[in-house]
Structures are given as structure tokens and as C-alpha cells.
């Protein structure tokens, strides 16, 4: 009997999602039963990594079979769930799923920043969003989507925040690595494009690449633009030195 099939029946009959550790414990208990047969005993001390690997194979098989349900990992625990396209019937059969109210756009933005950059201080979040986040932080903490995660080792020792226990479950994510486009968003520095260094064109930040047909109107003649603007009369001497 294959490990993955054993795991499959355990998850199939389980009333709650099971973690690899819980599955391992079941295997151990079965092996320790009096009179357990050899092949049952053999699975004693199956390492959790092996269980995870078997579960992943199993999940792939289910996906490949394109059934109406699949095996997923949410917050480190595995379970069978239905495919979303069957929701209309399930909704009428079982009723609308009891879920907390949807998050607002500011809350989602704030949560995304925390999720990708945790641990992060409030000031850092506000730096990225450009607005204060006090209100949404309250909501997020209340819903356990965000928790305090120690203090930053900087002056003032501000509180840092991280995603809370409800986060992965709420979005049905396996773990934090499962966040979409995680690599791109975690990488802190946004690479400065080389081209930006040119100051020649004194209008746009980006030099219009010669081959680029876009924005000719905007970039071609800055002087046309400028006078029309309300600040056109700014005296040339006033702007602070660019090196400020």
C-alpha cells in the first residue's frame, strides 16, 4: 500500500485539515497497535518531509484527473476542497459560506505590504502607501490577519507587524511562500533603470527611447507645456539646488 493512498484515506475521512505532523502521528499510532502487520509497522517514523512529498504527488494526481474536488494545503494543513466553479450548486445545496465581510481596498493594500515585507513597522507601511494606516491596522489586527511581531531594532523601537494566524486561512494559502509573486515583491530595492540617469531631456524623467513611438506629444516640446501650467511663473532662481 502506498503512503500517498494511506494519506488520502486519512484526509478523506478527516473532519478537519491535517498537518503532516498529525498524519505522521496517525501512522505511528497505527504502527504501535498491538498485532500491527509488518507493512503497517513499516510506516512508523515516516519523516514529515516524506509525507509532504507524498501529499504533493497526490495533489498533482488529483489535479491531473481534473475532478470536481482537489487536495490543497492551507496554512500547512491538507484537506480536500471543491473546485470553485461548482459553487453555484453548492451554494444552493449547502448555503452561502459563512465568511467574514470582505476587506476594503486600503485594508487589502496594507495587508499585502505586511504580508510581503514582514516584519514591518507602521512607519514603513505608511512610507509605501503614502497615507496613514491607523484605521485599517485596527481592523486587520481585530480579525487576526495581522499581529504584532516584536519591536524593530531601531531608534524608538517601534512595533513591528506580521501576518497573523487567520491570514493564510482567509486567503486559502499554503504558506507565506505561496503568496503570489512573492519573489518580486520581497526584493526590497526597485532597480533603478540605467536610462534614468540622463538629465538631458529636461521634462520627463525617462528619456524617450528613440525607437519608442509613444509620448512624442508629451516629450517633444516641453516648452509648450510649461507656460500653460499654473506654476509657469516660478522664477528660475527659486528652486532649491538639485543637490539638496
Amino acid at each position, binding site marked *: 500500500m502506498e503512503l500517498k493512498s494511506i494519506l488520502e484515506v486519512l484526509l*478523506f475521512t*478527516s*473532519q*478537519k*485539515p491535517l498537518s503532516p505532523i498529525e498524519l505522521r502521528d496517525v501512522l505511528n499510532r497505527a504502527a504501535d497497535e498491538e498485532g500491527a502487520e509488518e507493512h503497517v509497522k513499516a510506516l512508523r517514523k515516516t519523516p514529515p518531509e516524506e509525507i509532504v512529498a507524498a501529499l504533493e504527488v497526490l495533489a498533482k494526481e488529483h489535479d491531473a484527473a481534473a475532478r470536481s474536488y482537489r487536495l490543497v494545503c492551507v496554512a500547512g494543513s491538507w*484537506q*480536500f*476542497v*471543491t473546485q*470553485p*466553479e461548482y*459553487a453555484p450548486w453548492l451554494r444552493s445545496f449547502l448555503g*452561502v*459560506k459563512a465568511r467574514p465581510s470582505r*476587506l476594503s*481596498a*486600503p485594508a*487589502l*493594500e496594507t*495587508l*499585502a505590504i505586511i*504580508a*510581503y515585507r514582514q516584519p514591518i513597522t507602521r512607519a514603513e507601511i505608511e512610507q*509605501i*502607501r*503614502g*497615507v496613514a494606516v491607523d484605521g485599517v491596522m485596527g481592523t486587520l489586527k481585530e480579525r487576526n490577519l495581522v499581529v504584532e511581531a516584536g519591536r524593530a531594532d531601531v531608534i524608538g523601537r517601534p512595533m513591528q507587524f506580521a501576518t497573523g494566524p487567520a491570514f493564510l486561512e482567509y*486567503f*486559502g494559502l499554503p504558506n507565506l511562500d505561496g*503568496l*503570489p*509573486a512573492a519573489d*518580486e*515583491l520581497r526584493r526590497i530595492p*526597485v532597480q*533603478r533603470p540605467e*536610462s*534614468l540617469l540622463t*538629465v538631458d531631456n*529636461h*521634462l*520627463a*524623467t*525617462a528619456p524617450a527611447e528613440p525607437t519608442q513611438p*509613444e509620448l512624442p506629444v*508629451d516629450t517633444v516640446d*516641453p516648452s509648450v*507645456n*510649461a507656460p500653460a501650467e*499654473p*506654476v509657469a*511663473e*516660478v522664477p*528660475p532662481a*527659486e*528652486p532649491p*539646488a*538639485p*543637490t*539638496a
Partner: protein
Amino acid sequence: MRWRQPFTRPVPEMSEYRVQFEVFEGPLDLLLHLVKKQEVDIYQVNLLRIATEFVTYIEQMRELDLEIAGEFVVMAATLLYIKSRELLPVDKQVAVAVEDEDTEDPRWELIRRLVEYKKFKDAAARLQEREALMDSIYEHRPARPELTAPEPVRREAASVFDLVNAVATILKRYNERTDVREIQADPYTVSEKIDYLRQLSVGRPRFPFSELFASARSRAEVVVTFLALLELIRKKLFIAVQTEQFGEIEVELAPTPPAGATPQAPEPGTEGAVSEGALPPQSPPADIVEPTPPRSSDQLPEANPVGSDNETPQTA
């Protein structure tokens, strides 16, 4: 600071109308919107035009009497600073050093923030999709399989009081009959009813108490039937059980009917399913009466002793 002029300009008289105004989360959100309108990559955006549009937007907010968050004002200042730098003749502009310029060049700083903010805004949109998706996913949640045989329902023997209460309820139905009737000899006898009950139980191990009286036409008949039941219980041929408190009493055949035709078994007289001592003290003699039933079809007595204090005549 003449470049701040747009902000200090007196507000035009408050207009009576309100315009549908797109609300932005903050200055970066508004900037992104303006960039999007230009339909170019963020890196190639025309910042001067953006600056102008940004300020125009803020002015509109003022005209509409909207509260302008401080963040917007700060951003406007940054934009105008950038713009002012650009207005210098090219030869007067300070060449941007190649190194360490990231924090110095306000244009780059702004672009960097915009790019970063855009990424998180997109990430938030993906989270929102997932959030919506979760509404459509149902977990497989089997009920726990029944692994052990269900606990046998605890069935208490009904006491004689339970029985009396039950029959009293039934008798109430007959109470309303107050009409004057012809007096006639009661046609019912306990032994007849015993036969009837035993007939009733054939092929049916259990039946509800109330059913015993379903066909009763008079108060007397109910009473006689009840006495017959008591007698059968006393003889341990029937037992009365009650599965829950105040529940319907059920009558069933005793599990192991006394061997033979019940002559010797009921010696103790008052136990059985009916609780101890519940029966009137006169019952023991009833056993002895047994062998000499005047007209019982089943060697059962007429059970007078049981209900001897009853005001209703059992037999004519």
C-alpha cells in the same frame, strides 16, 4: 514661495453642486491613476504633466470643498519641486552623479515609490481575487463515522404512577360525556380485555400505550382495559417502558415469558416492570386466585384485586 500660490489662492465661492469625484486612497494612488492615463510605463512618465494634473486635481478638491489630506499637499510640493528643477536651462542643471544618486534625485525617488506602490496595489488585487475565490470553495467535511454501536436507548420501566397518569389523560377524553344515557350493564370484563391485549400484541413486540385505548368507547371500557394491562404486567407477560421522561409509555411483551401458562411465576406479585410497591397491597392474593378464574380464557384472573378500590366496576 510663489510656487505654492495655487494653494493659497482664495477658494471660489462654494458651488452649489457636487460632482462625482473619484476617491483615491492617497497621493500615490492618485499619481498612479494619472500615470495610467498617460498610457506609458511608469519609468517613462512625463512627470511635469503629472505634476500639473496633480495640482489641478487638488484644486478641484478644494473647489468641491473636500478635505485635502496632508499627504496630498506634501506630494504636490514634491512634484512642484521636481518641476521647478526641470525648468532650469539645461546648462544650469547640475549633472546627476552616477553614483549614490538614488536618494538625491527626487524624480527617481518618486518613480521608485510609485513602482513599489504599484506592485503592492497589484498584490492587493490578487489577494482580493483569492478572497473572492474562497467564497466559492467548500471543504470536504465528512461527519464522523459512527464507529461504535449506538448506546442502547435507556428504557426505564414505567412505574404504576406513570401508567395511572397516562390513563388519567386518556380518561379525560371521556369526561366530557355528560349527557344522560341509558344505564346498561357494562359489557366489558377484564379477562376479555386481557385477551384483547394479547391479541393486539401478536406479531407486534411493542405498541404505544395510547393505542390500547384507541377503540375504547366509554370511560368504563378504558378503565377495564387499563386493569387488564395492569394484570398482564403483574403477571410479567407485559412490561411497560418509558424511553424518556414524560415520553409516551410503550407496552411490550415481556422478554422471557414465564414458562408454561404463567401459573407460578407471579409469586412476588408487585414487581415486574411496574415499580415496587406501586401496586395496591391487595395484589398478592391475586396470584392465589389464579387457578380459579371464573371465566378467564387464559388462566388469568379477573384481576379484581388489583383495582378493587376502583370506583368503576370491572365486570358486571
